[in-house]
């Protein structure tokens, strides 16, 4: 197990190194710079700023500086928000994204699994069709449309929830629901098909013929096996919800990290681009690792340590 972990962490470091390198060179290759603005600066002042931010150093020096800053996780100040440290920006905006993301994942998982199971149990009956109509709608309606519709219904028409911003639990409901729609629909479909497969398998038939009640068969033998694909989807889901919340954060005026991530690219704010990229990569790599470990716990057939060792 320990050997497996060390190996996986080794992979994480290598991937991180590749990510930083690619990001750095893409960032440098993109036209425009952090100080470009509608009002061109006097050349002398622009020169002083380039000097102060180390943009005049040769490329390889800048590259090693970034590598170093990634290792120490100290990216220095933002270019656009004069004096604000990148780590402070991440620290203050990540909690918003985290709360929003967790809420969305909770909604997506609970309702998605529920819909999927209902659909599978009522296969080709009314329940199945209802659940799948909801799922198809969820997948095909983009989250920003969903957000506007939710705002219109619950804030403007019914006046029960605030339009935007992120102050209390009430504020978080609409963005979380809007963010959860697509993954919810995806999970429902995933759950339905894998549940159907499981329900038709031999051991379920055995369990049924042994005389176990429908409930025990469904919950104990069915769901536990059927949920495996959903778990493997969790890793990418966590990251896509955390990084993909940009649109939702913008519509609801939430000061989260997703918008910071996207805006830094538009602003060519090099230090923030680096900081958020490294942060999100770490998040992605570790959540995949954790999902793999959980997988081993849920499904005893997979021996994490041994299979890792054999490879």
């Amino acid at each position, binding site marked *: 197990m320990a050997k497996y972990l060390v190996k996986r962490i080794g992979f994480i470091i290598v991937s991180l190194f590749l990510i930083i390198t690619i990001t750095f060179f893409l960032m440098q290759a993109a036209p425009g710079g952090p100080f470009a603005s*509608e009002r061109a600066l006097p050349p002398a002042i622009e020169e002083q700023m380039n000097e102060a931010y180390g943009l005049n150093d040769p490329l390889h020096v800048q590259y090693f500086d970034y590598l170093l800053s990634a290792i120490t996780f100290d990216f220095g100040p933002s270019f656009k928000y004069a004096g604000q440290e990148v780590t402070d920006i991440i620290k203050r905006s990540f909690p918003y994204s985290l709360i929003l993301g967790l809420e969305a994942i909770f909604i997506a998982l609970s309702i998605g699994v529920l819909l999927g199971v209902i659909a599978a149990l009522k296969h080709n009956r009314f329940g199945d069709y209802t659940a799948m109509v909801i799922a198809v709608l969820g997948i095909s309606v983009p989250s920003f449309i969903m957000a506007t519709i939710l705002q219109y219904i619950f804030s403007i028409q019914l006046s029960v929830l605030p339009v935007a911003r992120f102050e209390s639990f009430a504020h978080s409901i609409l963005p979380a629901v809007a963010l959860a729609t697509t993954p919810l629909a995806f999970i429902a479909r995933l759950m339905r098909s894998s549940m159907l497969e499981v329900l038709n398998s031999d051991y379920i038939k055995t369990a049924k013929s042994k005389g176990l009640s429908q409930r025990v068969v469904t919950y104990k033998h069915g769901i536990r096996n059927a949920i495996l694909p959903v778990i493997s989807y969790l890793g990418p889901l966590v990251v896509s919800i955390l990084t993909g919340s940009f649109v939702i954060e913008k519509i609801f*005026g939430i000061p989260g990290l997703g918008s910071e991530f996207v805006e830094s690219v538009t602003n060519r704010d090099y230090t923030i681009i680096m900081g958020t990229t490294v942060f999100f990569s770490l998040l992605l790599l570790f959540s995949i690792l954790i999902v793999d470990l959980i997988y081993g716990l849920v499904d005893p057939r997979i021996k994490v340590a041994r299979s890792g060792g054999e490879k």
Partner: protein
Amino acid sequence: MNWKRWSLFLALVLTMGIFLAACGDDEEAGGDDGQDPGTEETDSGEDNGNSEGEGEGESGLAADQTLNVNIKTEPPSLHPGLATDTTSGAVLDQVFEGLMRINQDGEVEPAMAEDQPEVSDDLTTYTFTIREDATWSNGDPVTAQDFEYAWKWVLDPENADTDYAYQLYVIKGAQDAKENGGSLDDVGITAEDDKTLVVELQQPTPYFLDLTAFYTYYPVNHNVVDGVDDWAQDVTETYVTNGPFLLESWEHKDQIVLKKNPEYWDADTVNLETINMYMVDDENTAFQMFNNGELDWVGDPTDSLPLSAIPALKEEGSLNISSLAGVYYYAFNTEEAPFDNVNIRKAFASAVNREGIVQSITQREEQPAMALVPPSIWEENAEGYFADNDADQAKEYLEAGLEELGLDELPPIQLSYNTDEAHAAIAQAVQDMWRENLGVDVELNNEEWNVYLDTMGEGNFQVGRMGWLADFNDAINFLEIFQSVGGNNYTNWEDEEYSDLLEQSRTETDDAARKEILREAEGIFMDAMPISPVYFYTNAWVNKDYVKDVAVSGLGGVQYKWGYISDAKEE
């Protein structure tokens, strides 16, 4: 079997318990927050009592003097020396104050300065006396040294982030100190004593007093901030200000709260007790918040209205419009064929239906622009130098131009703009006008903002969209862009006579004569037509009826000093 089932049940109950507990917490928290507005109301109820007690004589004031506005984004810096954008300016203008302030009527009036300054006969030396009752929010008096420190800090080459240092370049020795290693001691800023500030200018500058109202010219409390580099990062003891409002809290990217400054010298004028500035980036969301009563003001100058909402607002008559000193234009690359020919440039400029664009696309009652300097600065420019949408004239110019170039018809040309809904709509309309009036194939090319600036800077365009907003209310602001190639002049056009006239205007001390010179320069410019002006900008916003006397400036700024909430809110 039984115990197994029970343990399963127990586990289920426990997990449900965890979730429920979590939900319960949330709900409690939600409940608390839900009550928050309630408590706020009672709070403000108490405030009411106070303000009623204070202002019994004043009629028409609502009890709750709280204004909710949207400033769209995080202000990049609340350090007056580092700020370079309107969002930061919108906050700084409330919490700091310079020697002068632009009042509701757009006139310069003394602020930190006691009176109008004494000006020497050659108009290059200004002596300001700081008012006795001017204090910092920590109780220190505002001194001439504070101004000297703040301005020289900006001019110090060691402080590299000061993009707007060039706003101070009218002061003698300022440019030298910033760019050419000149000594800061030679800069013409001298604090004679605590209350007397003497400023020597490079040459007579008729708009210098306007400049002293600009945020780069704001003072900082040098006793507090000297040596504290990050004093303006957050609301701390070192964030010491001298304006009508105090920075109460700054939650980055989320919300700024301003409170009235009771120690402000003119505190009697200030009615608003609290200003909540939210940072909601999405225009549609902000507009919904306004409709829902969560905002009292939406649109310019700190935010913008969604394009789609404007026609309806106009119809119901709630849209407010004020002019803004700025021009939206298409720059021609005068080194790129066919725009190296002046008749071709004139043909393209005449073939644009500006009235149509402002009527059916932008719809904010912008004025069609047939000149460079906005009519809010020069009234006569409402007419302009040529006729709008003059297809016949355009065809004449086109024929003359084609003959000079030895061409039978125009080659396909490219129109560039940065990605944006409104820019795209205007470009499509212009594409159609040019195709119809001139028979030319126009290809549209849009790029992301940073990439676009790069392309324009490299001269890699034929026709490109640009805009310019004045920093201060003077025509030179627009004319000097095109004095030489580079900087903000992407057209590659320059003209010796034009440049000479501008230089001449800088030393001319008589207002009328100066204007005459500048008008002549504009004439030369419009005759060469290196740009095709499209329209002069306006501010467009809606506010709740009970919001009164908020001063929207023609320069894109806003001041809440005189604003108040009328008692119409309670009815």
